């Protein structure tokens, strides 16, 4: 993808891109990886705790406890996003906060909050899925293709 983009540029632009690339500060990989691993792990640990709570006190089974757990995590994430805490943690943690489902909720809540000044219908309603939309679209489309293929294989076999 990057190569295709490069072909369309003039030689001067290509030269500039190479120059810019050389001066790009190296990303602190080890630090970012450790942070992502620990924050992500801790969020999943909290999720596991909530799940155990649903199983123990609310009569959910291991199979059904996943859904309310997700809902609670999303609620917490929306709340922390509103208070401005989630984005502060996210700056530190990188993918550790954006890969868990809380990151999905954060992208929806923060888009909703940011666009509120444009009104509830055009701003909040229209922009809520600005970031999360691609996740839903690609998830649903790939699930559709996989579902069709699997069903056809089962029917044939």
């Amino acid at each position: 993808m990057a190569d295709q983009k490069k072909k369309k540029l003039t030689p001067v632009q290509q030269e500039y891109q190479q120059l810019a690339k050389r001066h790009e500060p190296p990303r602190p990989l080890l630090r970012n990886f450790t942070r992502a691993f620990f924050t992500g792990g801790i969020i999943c640990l909290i999720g596991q705790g909530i799940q155990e709570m649903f199983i123990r006190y609310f009569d959910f089974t291991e199979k059904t406890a996943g859904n309310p757990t997700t809902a609670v995590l999303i609620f917490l994430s929306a709340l922390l996003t509103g208070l401005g805490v989630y984005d502060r943690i996210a700056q530190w943690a990188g993918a550790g906060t954006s890969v868990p489902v809380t990151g999905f909720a954060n992208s929806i809540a923060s888009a909703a909050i940011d666009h509120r000044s444009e009104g509830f219908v055009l701003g909040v309603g229209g922009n809520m899925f600005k970031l999360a939309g691609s996740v839903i679209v690609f998830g649903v489309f790939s699930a559709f293709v996989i579902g069709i293929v699997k069903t056809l294989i089962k029917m044939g076999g």
Partner: protein
Amino acid sequence: MTFLWAFLVGGTICLIGQFLLDVVKLTPAHTMSSLVVAGALLDGFGLYEPLVKFAGAGATVPITSFGNALVHGAMQEAEKHGIVGVITGIFEVTSAGISAAIVFGFFAAVLFKPKG
């Protein structure tokens, strides 16, 4: 014991996400989309369910489980209604996540002002 595996597996999936961001240099949107598609594919091959059994929330909390749940819903309905079920069932399992995100996101927009 599940707690330890939840931490390790969840952390590893986030590590993969960070790897895609920093080393492969994908944008955040590309990273998340890739992870969702990866989760859907893994479930297509029947590999995600064992991971959930083993790591609990370590596998269900990361966004990969969204892809897994979409395929799961589609297949559940497909078993009952054939090929039409693939369309009607896709959101069956993920309903909680999407509804919660929309409702709480909306509440957040009503209650909070943008920061920074």
